[in-house]
Structures are given as structure tokens and as C-alpha cells.
């Protein structure tokens, strides 16, 4: 579904992505793991076209995304830090997004919206919201248009346990519908029962991309956190 070939991105002297090639297919639920500053968010933003890679190409359903924008209607994106116009209310944000993205072929998915209780906060201005409520808005927007691909950047950071449980439920529900889900998270324990594939990045390089099962048998660990710790120890030596 998404084919990334040899992309490189530099910010000044910093190499954020160094010759990364990845192939992702639908029905996969991929965990994007790596230390801080390893290029995870840059990779995600490149897929979304928010960052323009210096080299290499990204294909979406075999079409280059470089001069395309329509492909983004298949993607739901939840940013790490949701930035919204401060003086718009939650209701206005949703109205705006609906008026931008809505067409008749899309059925809206407002499940999260009601479960998070955002329908009671419609008049609240974005500037007055807490970090957690902003995250809830981001999550709802990512799922709202029933996209084929979900890209979630640190989805549960800042959410209370109840909300993060609701979100995880929702993610596994979408997973069973055969969507491609890409998650980055530092809380590896919450990924255990969700992910099918692991992408591990370090210093802008792709270290490996393999099924979770293969990683389990390689390291002999059942838990993702232990398996990754095992790998990191090996590479450190």
C-alpha cells in the first residue's frame, strides 16, 4: 500500500532520515519504535507530505505522492502534539474538517467522539483545552472519516487511563477491519496485543522491519519491551 524507497531527509547538518526503504501493506498493524530523535515523526510526516524528502520516493498504491494530494483522503493522522487554531471551538474544528473532507462515499465514524464525551464540549475554544482533551480531539479527527490508513503518533501520550483504554479498543477494532495502522509509542507494553509488525529505527536509519512473531522467536522474549531491550543491548555491544 505504501512503498517508501531510499528516502533521505536532512535538516541542516542533522540527518533525520538516512536512506530509508519500507514497504507497508494493508491489514498490518505496525509499531514504529526507536529512541528520541531517531526520525520516526519525520518518516510519518514524509508519508503525509508535510515534510518533503531530499531524495527517494514514496509510492501510495503505486502512485508517487510527490505532486499528489488526493491520496491523503485515505489517511487519518493523529499528530504527536495536536496544534489547532486557538480561537476556534471544538465544534467549529469538526465542522471545518467535515466540510473539507466529507463526500458522499464516506460514512462518518463518530464513535470515539461520543465515547470521549466531546459532544458536551462543542463550544469550548481550542486554546482553553487541556493537553489530554486536545489529544482526544486529534484522535476523533483521525478516525472520523473512516480512512484506510491510520497514522498515530504517540496516541496515548497525555490521555487518562480510561480514555487511553477506549482508544486502544478502537484501534484493535479498526485493525480487524483490515486497515493499515502505523503507531509510534514509547509505552511498548500497550503495543503488545495490537501490533503485527515492528519497524525499529535509530539515528535516521531503518534497523529492521519484521513481523512481531519473527522478533519473538529470534529473541526468545514474549513481551515487546523485553524483545526491544534485548535487541538494543545486542546492538550496543
Amino acid at each position, binding site marked *: 500500500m505504501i512503498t517508501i524507497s531510499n528516502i533521505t531527509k536532512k*535538516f541542516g547538518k542533522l540527518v533525520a532520515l538516512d536512506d530509508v526503504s519500507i514497504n507497508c501493506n494493508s491489514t498490518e498493524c505496525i509499531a514504529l519504535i526507536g529512541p528520541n530523535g531517531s526520525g520516526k515523526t519525520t518518516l510519518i*510526516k514524509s508519508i*503525509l*507530505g*508535510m*515534510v*518533503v524528502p531530499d531524495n527517494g520516493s514514496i509510492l501510495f498504491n503505486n502512485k508517487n505522492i510527490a505532486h499528489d*494530494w*488526493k*491520496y*491523503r*483522503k485515505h*489517511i487519518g*493522522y493523529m*499528530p504527536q502534539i495536536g*496544534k*489547532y*487554531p*486557538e*480561537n*476556534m471551538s471544538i465544534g467549529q474544528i469538526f465542522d*471545518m*474538517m467535515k*466540510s*473539507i*473532507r466529507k463526500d458522499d462515499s464516506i460514512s462518518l465514524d463518530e464513535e470515539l467522539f461520543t465515547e470521549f464525551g466531546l459532544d458536551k464540549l462543542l463550544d469550548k475554544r481550542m486554546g482553553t483545552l487541556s493537553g489530554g482533551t486536545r489529544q482526544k480531539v486529534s484522535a476523533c479527527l483521525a478516525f472520523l472519516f473512516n480512512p484506510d490508513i491510520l497514522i498515530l503518533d504517540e496516541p496515548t501520550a497525555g490521555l487518562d487511563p480510561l480514555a487511553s483504554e477506549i482508544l486502544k479498543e478502537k484501534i484493535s477494532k479498526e485493525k480487524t477491519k483490515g486497515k493499515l495502522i502505523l503507531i509510534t509509542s514509547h509505552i511498548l507494553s500497550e503495543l503488545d496485543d495490537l501490533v503485527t509488525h515492528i519497524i525499529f529505527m535509530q539515528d535516521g536509519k531503518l534497523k529492521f522491519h519484521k513481523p512481531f512473531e519473527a522478533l519473538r522467536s529470534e529473541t526468545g522474549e514474549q513481551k515487546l519491551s523485553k524483545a526491544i531491550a534485548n535487541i538494543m543491548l545486542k546492538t550496543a555491544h
Partner: protein
Amino acid sequence: MKKIIKFVIIDILRNKIVLTYTIFLLITSLSVFNLEDNTAKGLLSLLNLILFIVPLVSIIFSTIYIYNSSEFIELLVSQPLERKNIWLSLFFGLAGSMVLAFFIGAGIPILIYEASSTGIMMLIIGCIITIIFVAIAFLTTVNTRDKAKGIGTAILLWLYFALLFDGLVLFILFQFSDYPLEKVVVFISALNPIDLGRILILLRLDVSALMGYTGAVFKDFFGTSLGMAIAFITLLLWCIIPVGWSVIKFKKKDL
């Protein structure tokens, strides 16, 4: 595209600054026309005011507004929208509201007191100058990520166009006063939209006689319909080139 323009305009109208700017323009233009018994004189005073304040407010407000919309832009860029459309919608929304503010603030008094061809010309030039400086603001902001640097650049650009440029032209004229520079000056004036606007209006008022020999050269050139057409095309280029350039840059910008 229309939807985004609508959101931008609603957002700007909610912002009190544009409203204050409109009221300020309205009060000044009404008082200028009421102070002078001769409306041509009033028009002249208003001209100097407009050529000073309109570029300043247009460029500074737009620069700050675009920086403050960075979240809005970032939100839209991850959606199925073309980058060019996002940027141009922002431009049309901003330029549209500034032109509207100018039209209500200065245009209506002009139409009431001096609805002659000169008055209408001034109205048109004021609108074009507004658009030009909004366009320049777009070019400045797309080039710098740093807000303080961007706003600083905008202020410097305004200083350059409103004050420094005339000083430079005078300096050149004095230094090379032995050479016939009158034709060159016509060309140089095209490098500053404010000057171009000023010349176009001054030539329609009687005061152009005060401008001496250079004034005569200006009259020879800009007084003809061909000269006028060239002047207006130059002003249009001053709108199109900065916006076009900023669109090209915005398409490649990392967010």
C-alpha cells in the same frame, strides 16, 4: 478552496484589529475631507496618509496573522488539500479582508466627497497597494520560520519602500545630476509600488506642475494611455510575482 477562504475571513473579522483599522481610516478620511474646503487638497492629504499607513498595516498585520495561523496551516496540510490551494486561500482571505477594510474606511468617504475619476483612481491604487503588501508579507513569512525575524523583515521592507527608497533615488539624482536621468527615473519608479501609485495620482492633480522637469517627463510617459497601462501592469506584477514565488516556496516547505 472557497471553504478555507470563508474560514479565514470569518477568523479575521472576529479579530478586532481589522475593525479598528477600518474605523481609523474612516475617521481620518472623513476629517481630512471636512478640514479642507477644496476636495482636491483633501485628496492630496489623504493620498500621503494612505501611501504611508496602508502598506504598514497590510504588511505587518498579514505577517503576524500568517505566523499565528501556523497551526491552522499545519492542520490543513495533513488533510487531502493541495498545498497551493491552502496558501492561495489564505492569501485571498487576507487580501480580501484588508481590501474590504480599505474600501469601507477610505473608499466610501472618497466616493462621497470626490467621486471623480481621480478619486476612483486613488481608490483602485489603494486596493492594489493593499494587495501588494499582503503579497510581500506572504513572501517574507514563507522564507523565515522565526517569527521575530519575519516580523523584523516585514518592518524593514516597509521602511525601505515607504522611506528609504525615496532617499536612495534622491541620492542617485544628486550624485549624477550632470547626466540626463529623467528617463531612468521613470524606470526606477517602477521598482517601488508606493512611488508608482503616488506618481499616478499626482499627475491627475494639478500639483504635478510643481514636480519640475522630471514631472514633465513623468507626464509625457504616464500621462499617455500606454504609460498608464504599463504602470498598472507593473503594479499587477508587484501583486503576482511575490505571491507566485511564495507559492513555489510553500510547496517545498517542511512543516
